[in-house]
């Protein structure tokens, strides 16, 4: 399995990368970790004329604290996110999701920016980014814009990124005080991708209630989504197992589940309910703990 020939550029700065992208237009593909793109090239499902390797551009990787939370450079690898004490402390949900991606070798190469840009409906990060209300920062020759995760994933392998834009960072606001988080996943046996992944963030309220909850679901439908009906059913309710179960039963309400070789639409709907219930219960347990 050898890719078709292509040209290769390794710009030294973001400005150079943007200029190359403009110059080559549709014929170019950005290359970060290559763990979505190289398999496509090898299978000749993609045949770009030029690869623009941005993996070494300084300033696009690493994790820093900001006034409102964390800034994670687009080139930060899944392993770096998984292992980061900052991420584990500030938004453990994201570290947990990163740690469930593929395997060690994949996590050593794949990047958060590449994963988001690729927008694979079976990828793990979208659920976490939705539940954390993260924003994706994109640069173009015209400037920089910040796209909320809720508007970023638009379809299978489709995002709100425009041609010519490069993702530079993911910004994750600090979750509300006292909240608990969890990411749970039913993985495809062979590839490890998510058949269903649920990210839950629960904010406990007074007197054993739930003040609010956020639930991101990936793998079940395309694009990944917030299970708003589940969230609404929990707001202000007692944090009882029964209430969680009733709310989680709505986790696939109003979506059209994927139906493929790995799981039927009905099975995915059922997985969404079961994993939403478990993720909510785990998030609540951690909030209390």
């Amino acid at each position: 399995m050898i890719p078709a020939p292509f040209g290769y550029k390794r710009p030294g700065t973001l400005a150079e990368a943007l200029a190359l992208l403009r110059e080559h237009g549709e014929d170019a593909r950005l290359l970060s970790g290559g763990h979505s793109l190289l398999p496509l090239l090898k299978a000749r499902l993609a045949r770009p004329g030029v690869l623009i390797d941005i993996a070494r551009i300084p300033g696009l990787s690493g994790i820093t604290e900001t006034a409102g939370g964390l800034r994670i450079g687009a080139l930060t690898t899944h392993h770096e996110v998984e292992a980061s004490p900052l991420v584990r402390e500030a938004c453990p949900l994201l570290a947990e999701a990163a740690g469930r991606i593929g395997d060690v070798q994949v996590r050593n190469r794949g990047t958060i920016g590449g994963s988001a840009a690729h927008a694979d409906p079976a990828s793990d990060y979208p659920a976490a980014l939705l539940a954390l209300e993260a924003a994706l920062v994109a640069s173009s020759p015209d400037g920089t814009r910040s796209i909320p995760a809720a508007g970023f994933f638009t379809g299978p392998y489709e995002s709100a990124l425009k041609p010519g834009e490069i993702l530079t960072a993911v910004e994750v606001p600090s979750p509300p005080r006292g909240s608990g988080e969890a990411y749970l996943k039913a993985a495809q046996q062979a590839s490890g991708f998510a058949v269903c992944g649920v990210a839950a963030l629960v904010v406990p309220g007074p007197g054993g209630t739930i003040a609010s909850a956020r639930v991101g679901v990936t793998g079940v439908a395309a694009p990944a989504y917030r299970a708003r009906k589940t969230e609404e059913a929990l707001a202000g309710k007692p944090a009882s197992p029964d209430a969680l179960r009733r709310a989680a039963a709505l986790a696939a309400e109003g979506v059209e589940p994927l139906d493929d070789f790995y799981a039927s639409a009905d099975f995915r709907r059922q997985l969404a309910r079961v994993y939403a219930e478990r993720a909510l219960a785990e998030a609540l347990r951690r909030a209390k703990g």
Partner: protein
Amino acid sequence: MNISLCINGQSRAFDAEPRTLLVHLLRDEAGLTGTHIACETSVCGACTVLLDGKAVKSCTVLAVQAEGSEITTIEGLAPGGKLHPLQEQFWEKHGLQCGYCTPGMILAAWQLLERRPDPSEEEIRHGIEGNLCRCTGYQHIVDAIQAAAAQMGGKR
């Protein structure tokens, strides 16, 4: 394109097309056939090498992406023929049968022990998740990694 790599401590220069996969460069140009190719589709881990100290599947890395990097292949784990504790323990504990998966398995295990010098059985199984073995049923591999961890006493 010119590609310079430091492979198992030796600086090497190659002329290769950008589409050349690292695994092909290592096997066909550098002559290091210890790195195996099996699935070619990023799932089996047979082609695992260390790229700047990180385990990667070399069928899913372009040689040009590795430009200027340090590569360690299975050959590099036994300089002068002295086996690494992982190699010794795969031998002792029967961590291989046909041996096809072994180079990749050992380098994935190397990565695990570098990050977790004293792993539990569960951590070992998690650490070699990206490597498939069709022969051993994994138990002897897990035993070998555990024994190597003990032999190394926390050092790599």
